[in-house]
């Protein structure tokens, strides 16, 4: 059996989705944890320092490359699977089984994923490009602040620029978070199923964690633009 056979089999493809999915879930934990620092009432100092740490240390930078690879694999494989699976039934049904047999979001991972991808492109443009590539090729540069005589990127203020007074952007971000929530509501537990968790004692735990995760993390993310918009930070 070759590696190609393993990873091009139906289960192998799902393994790729599951592994990259869990990797991206781990990333979300780091991301939401760091960003929650915006609520530390010190004018963004903790947050800017945390962001600086992630941007300047070698380990997070290497992980960042892994992150892009993870996103890439998850997206490409996801689209391939969706297209291939759809092609297996050339004549459809007149009456659909629909929500009687499964949850709508479990059948809509491709669409939810696409919404998240569109959101992601905008999100990268808002924050990642200015902080990593700002100054190059006319890309807008982040402002700076001084803490104890050292200069830092003022990402905290950048978020204010993007969100404060921009109702449309805030709504788009909240919609992106809702898509993420539904994607996770199915994806979290499905990933573990794919990796072979069949012991119900563990699976029940994973399922409960997955639902909690799918609510708490996107909610925390959604509260960030809302907080800026409403002037809470």
């Amino acid at each position, binding site marked *: 059996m070759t590696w190609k056979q393993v990873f091009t089999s139906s289960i192998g493809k799902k393994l790729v989705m599951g592994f990259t999915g869990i990797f991206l879930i781990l990333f979300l934990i780091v991301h939401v944890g760091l960003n929650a620092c915006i609520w530390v009432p010190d004018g963004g100092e903790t947050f800017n320092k945390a962001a600086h740490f992630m941007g300047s240390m070698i380990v997070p930078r290497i992980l960042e490359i892994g992150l892009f690879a993870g996103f890439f694999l998850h997206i490409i494989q996801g689209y391939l699977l969706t297209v291939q699976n759809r092609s297996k039934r050339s004549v459809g049904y007149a009456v659909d089984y629909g929500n009687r047999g499964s949850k709508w979001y479990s059948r809509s991972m491709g669409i939810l994923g696409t919404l998240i991808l569109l959101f992601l492109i905008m999100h990268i443009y808002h924050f990642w490009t200015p902080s990593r590539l700002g100054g190059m090729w006319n890309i807008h540069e982040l402002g700076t602040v001084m803490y104890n005589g050292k200069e830092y990127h003022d990402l905290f203020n950048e978020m204010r620029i993007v969100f404060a007074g921009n109702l449309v952007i805030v709504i788009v971000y909240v919609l992106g978070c809702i898509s993420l929530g539904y994607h996770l509501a199915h994806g979290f537990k499905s990933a573990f199923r794919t*990796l072979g968790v069949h012991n119900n004692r563990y699976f029940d735990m994973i399922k409960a964690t997955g639902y909690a995760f799918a609510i708490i993390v996107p909610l925390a993310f959604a509260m960030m633009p809302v907080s800026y918009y409403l002037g809470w930070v």
Partner: protein
Amino acid sequence: MEHYTMNLNLKVWRQQNAAAKGGFKLYRVENISSEMSFLEMFDVLNEQLIHDGEDPITFDHDCREGICGSCSMYIDGKPHGPWQANTTCQLHMRAFKDGDTIVVEPWRADSFPVIKDLMVDRTAFDRIIQAGGYISVNTGNAVDGNSLPIPKDDADASFAAAMCIGCGACVAACKNSSAMLFVSAKVAHLALLPQGEPERRSRVLNMVAQMDKEGFGACTNTGACEATCPKEISLSNIARLNQEYTLASLTAK
């Protein structure tokens, strides 16, 4: 439940053969007893069609007692009709009311091509079984069944998986036309028993390879198969299949 009779409108998929383009035809059946099974209602309709000199509707059936898995009708958007844990032959007309319109379609999946009308070709399942759904035993005297100790829980789980009657409703219900519930039931059934141990790895690899070759889709764990399965085969069998496959494929030579 009180016995009653009903008149029904049926919208049935008619298709001459695999190559022909099919379509729905409307039929009316009258004085159908609530005690009849769904297939008996179709028998009445076919008698009527033969009487009128029309081509009767072709559909699969054999045991008519819910154990062979050959009956296959997609009724009002659900394989085997509205009841839970039930086959088409065991669906009774008391599930319907006078005046209902019932839509009946064949299983739809490119791996299950229509032979005629409501009958589809499910030999893909046979080929998957041939690829590994067996154990090898030496001929000679039959071994005493109790000579191999098997933990009760494993025996029960294996038996629950062995309940699968190979009807294909899981494929019909799945948006991906995936056969994973069927394959997982067959793999789990044998993987849980010591008799299945010698071929455990090659079995799962070969059966999954055959499943892919037959053109079934990849499972995305939506659970529609489990919800429609007449034998209530659990989705956790699919997780077991994934585990069996992962271990076997990563350790294969």
